[in-house]
């Protein structure tokens, strides 16, 4: 099993390295990501959103809907934790291992 995992990891790594060869260099100001879409956020942020912090303007305005999703994720996680962790008050704990009835977390 560990061997398989190792192989899977190495294959993934090789694929990633293979792909990185064609990646733009680190800090390349002419990489596609710097030239398409993002310049507008930088250049127009004051004009369009009146926010000097571009991360804020993108987060809360240009891509504000993602942030709604993000908060929903947190909400989901919160409710999930309540759902999972809330113990029924009078339920008998189902212990698989009766020999070791240590107190649980």
């Amino acid at each position, binding site marked *: 099993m560990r061997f398989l995992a190792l192989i899977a990891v190495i294959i993934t790594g090789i694929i990633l390295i293979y792909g990185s060869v064609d990646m733009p260099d680190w800090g390349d100001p002419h*990489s596609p990501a710097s030239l398409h879409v*993002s310049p507008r956020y*930088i250049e127009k*942020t004051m004009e369009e959103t009146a926010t000097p912090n571009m*991360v804020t303007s993108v987060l809360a305005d240009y891509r504000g809907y993602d942030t709604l999703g993000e908060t929903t994720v947190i909400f989901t996680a919160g409710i999930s934790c309540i759902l*999972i962790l809330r113990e029924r008050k009078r339920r008998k704990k189902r212990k*698989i291992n009766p020999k070791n009835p240590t107190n649980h977390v």
Partner: protein
Amino acid sequence: MFDLIISKYNYWIYIILMMIGFYAMIGKKNLVKKIIGMNIFQTAIILFFISTASKKGGTLPIIMHGHGAHAVKAASYINPLPHVLMLTAIVVMVSTLGVALAIVIQIYRRYNTLEENEILRLNK
């Protein structure tokens, strides 16, 4: 070749991190170790995204001189979009972590162990 390694070192770092995390996720038997691996994996991805944002000569994506003084040049600020995406992704990851830990607690309550092998044995 050497150039390649130097100029793209950010990718090599993230790939190594990712491999470590990925291995822990699928190779380790302890559930908490799996979760730690998951976090390393996700951190690697964050690193990758953030590194695509950098520009040589760019500064933090916050306009410093107030507005209207001079036209803002895209090249002088680093790309804000990956940061935004990663803010969202971090939240997603934290949430996943939370749910994962909650499930692990539930598993521990039932089996009194976090070792995969033992759980599989008890499950029979």
